[in-house]
C-alpha cells in the first residue's frame, strides 16, 4: 500500500506547482449585513420554509412548550443526553406532566441501546451550538453527552437553540467556529430540515431515513 501511495504521489508531482496555495478571500453575500433582529427573523423564515416547526420561547416557559408538544403529538418515550442541566430540567418537566411519558438516558454504548434507539424512542431533544440564518441551519456538535444517534433515529427531533448563538452566514461560522481548531470534534452536523427525498419522480416526501419531524425551540 505504501507502494500505491508512492506511485500516486509520484504521478501527481510531475508537473504541479510547488508554490503555496493562494489564500483566497471569501466573502459572504456582498450585500446585506443583517442586524440581530433581521438575522433572528431570517432563521425562523428559512426553518419554516423547510418544514421545521419553530417555537420562540424563554427561560421561564420553554419546558412548558416542550411538554405541550409532547402531549399534543403523543410522544411518550423521550431520548435525552446527560450532564446538561437544561436537559435535566426538560426531562423532569416531561415526566411530571404525564405518567405515560418516560425517559431514556443515552448513557450506555450504542451497541447496548441499539434496539431502543431504532424502535422504541418517539422523540429526542438535543442542544444546538449555533445556527445559520441564511439557510435556516442548526449546528450540532455531538459528543459524549449528546451522542450522534440522538438526532438521527427518533422520528421526532427537538432542538434547543439560544438566540444569541444565531449567526448570519456559514462563512461567518467557519471564520469563527464554536469548536476547537486544534482538535476537531469527531462529528459536526448541520441540520436544516426533517429528513426528505425527491428521488421518486421528483416528488418531495418526508421522513426518508432520519427524523420526519424537526422542532426548534429558540431560547430568547
Amino acid at each position, binding site marked *: *500500500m505504501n507502494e*500505491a501511495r508512492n*506511485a*500516486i*504521489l509520484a*504521478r*501527481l*508531482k510531475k*508537473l*504541479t*506547482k510547488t508554490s503555496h*496555495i*493562494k489564500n*483566497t478571500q*471569501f466573502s*459572504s*453575500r*456582498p450585500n446585506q449585513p443583517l442586524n440581530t433582529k433581521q438575522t433572528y427573523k431570517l432563521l425562523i423564515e*428559512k426553518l419554516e420554509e*423547510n418544514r421545521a416547526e419553530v417555537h420562540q420561547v424563554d427561560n421561564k416557559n420553554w419546558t412548558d412548550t416542550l411538554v405541550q408538544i409532547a402531549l399534543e403529538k403523543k410522544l411518550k418515550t423521550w431520548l435525552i443526553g446527560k450532564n446538561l442541566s437544561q436537559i435535566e430540567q426538560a426531562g423532569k418537566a416531561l415526566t411530571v406532566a404525564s405518567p405515560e411519558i418516560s425517559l431514556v438516558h*443515552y*448513557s450506555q454504548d*450504542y451497541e447496548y441501546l441499539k434496539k431502543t434507539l431504532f424502535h422504541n424512542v418517539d422523540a429526542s431533544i438535543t442542544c444546538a451550538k449555533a445556527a445559520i440564518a*441564511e*439557510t*435556516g*441551519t442548526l449546528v450540532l456538535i*455531538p459528543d*459524549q453527552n449528546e*451522542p*450522534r444517534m440522538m438526532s438521527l433515529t427518533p422520528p421526532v427531533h427537538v432542538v434547543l437553540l439560544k438566540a444569541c448563538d444565531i449567526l448570519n*452566514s*456559514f*462563512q461567518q*461560522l*467557519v*471564520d469563527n*467556529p464554536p469548536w476547537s*481548531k486544534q482538535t*476537531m470534534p*469527531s*462529528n459536526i*452536523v*448541520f*441540520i*436544516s*430540515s426533517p*429528513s426528505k*427525498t*425527491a*428521488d*421518486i*419522480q*421528483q*416528488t418531495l*416526501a418526508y*421522513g*426518508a*431515513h*432520519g427524523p420526519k419531524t424537526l422542532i426548534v425551540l429558540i431560547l430568547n
Partner: protein
Amino acid sequence: MSSNFSTRIKQALADPQLRSNFRGAMDFLRNKRQLAFSDEDEWETLKKQGAAIRQDAIQHLPELLMQLEQQCLNNGIQVHWAQDGEEANNIVLSIAQQHQAKLVIKGKSMATEEIELNDFLGRHNIECIESDMGEYIVQLDNEKPSHIIMPAIHKNTAQITELFEKKLGISTPEGDVDALIGVGRTILRKKFEQAEIGISGVNFAIADSGTLCLVENEGNGRLSTTAPPVHIALMGIEKVIPNIQALPTLQKLLTRSATGQHITSYLNLISSPRKPDELDGPKEVHLILLDNGRAKISQDQELQSTLSCIRCGACMNHCPVYTRIGGHAYGSTYPGPIGQILTPQLKGLEQEGELLDACSLNGACGEACPVDIDLPELIRTLRHRRQATDTKTLSLESFVWFIWFKIHQHPRLYQFMTRLAALFRSLKLKAPENWSKTRTMPKPAKLSLHQQMKTRSKSKSGGEK
C-alpha cells in the same frame, strides 16, 4: 459511433416513457436551480470563488493529499491509497474480512459505482445494499443509476410501485410516494441496525483538519456512517480542499446546482471515529484515496480542469442530448457532459471516445457549471486528441476533411466547386442520407455571394478582389 452506443441511443429515443420521464425531471431540476441562483451577481461571485478553489486544489494535489493524510491519521482515521479500482476493492474486502462482515450498507457514492464495488463484494459473498432511496430502487431492479444525483430519475411513480410489488411483494396505493418511501425506510432501517460496515463517498475532504464532508437529504448517509462499527469512505483524490473556509462556497454551489436547495437537510462533518469517552459513532473510520486515472489527468494542462468537478449534475440537467437519451444510453458510470469528458480519460479514448460524438457543442453545460469548467472546450480538445491518436488514418472522415481542406485552401477551386454544386444543385456534404431522413436538402443558390460580389465590384469603380 459504435453500433452499441448508436443502438442504445435509438432505443432511448424510441421510448416515450423514458423521454417523458427525463423531460419532466430535467425541466424540474433546471427550474429549481434557476430559482436558487436568481441573483446573477451572487452566481458570478460564487462561481469565480468556487472555480478558484477547485483549480488551486488541483494544482496542489500532492501537498494537500499528504496534509489530509497526516491530519486524518492524527485524528484516528486510517488512510489507504488505491491506484485503481481493483486495489480499492481489495482494500474494502480486506477490511470486511478482518471484521468478518457479511452485510455492508452504502450511503451514496458514484466512486464506488465507478469501481463496481457492489458486484465485487457480491462475488465474495458479502451483501452490499444501497440505502439512498434512488440507489435502492435502482439496485432492486438490477440497474445502474442513470443520473449522478437522482439515480432513479428514469423511473416514474407507477413504475416504482410496480417494482416494489414485483420484487418485494409489497403493494402500495397508486401514486402514493409517501407509502413507497415508508416501505424503503422500514426495510433499510433493519439493515442499518445489522450492517457491520457502512460505506460512503466524500463530497469534500478538508486537508488542514482531516475532515470528511458529506451532504444529503435523507439521513441514510449519516446512518451508514454512524451505525455500523466500521465506516469506509471512498474518495477520488481530486475531492480534497485546503481548509474549512472553502467549504461554504462549495457547499452553496453544489446543493443549489444539484437540486436547487440552498442547503441539504444534512451536512455531515466527520473528523474521527468514536472517541474514548463517546458512546456512538464507528469505532473505525477508513479513508480510501482513489486514483484510477485522476493523477494522469491532473498532469495534463489542457484537460486538468476535468478534476474541478464537484459532481453536482448541473451539466447533464442542462444537456439537450442527455434530456432525450437519458443516462443509461451512455453506458458509463458518469453520463452527460462530465461523463463524456471523464470516461474516455479514465477508460481510454479509443474505447470510449465515441461518447464525444453525442454533443452538439451548444454550451449549455459549460454555462451551468458552478466551478466554471469549460466543458464544451474539453469535449473539443478530447475530439482533437482522439483524432490525433486515431490509428485508422485512412478513415473515411479523415479523407473527407482532407478533401474539404484542399477545396477550401484554394479560393479558385472553392469557387469552382461552389459553381459546380449550384449547377448540379447537389450537396457535397458527407453522408447526406443522415441529413435527408428528416430534412430536405438545401439548394445551393444560383449565384453565390462570391459571384454576386464580383459582379457588384465590377459595376463599381475599384473594390478589392
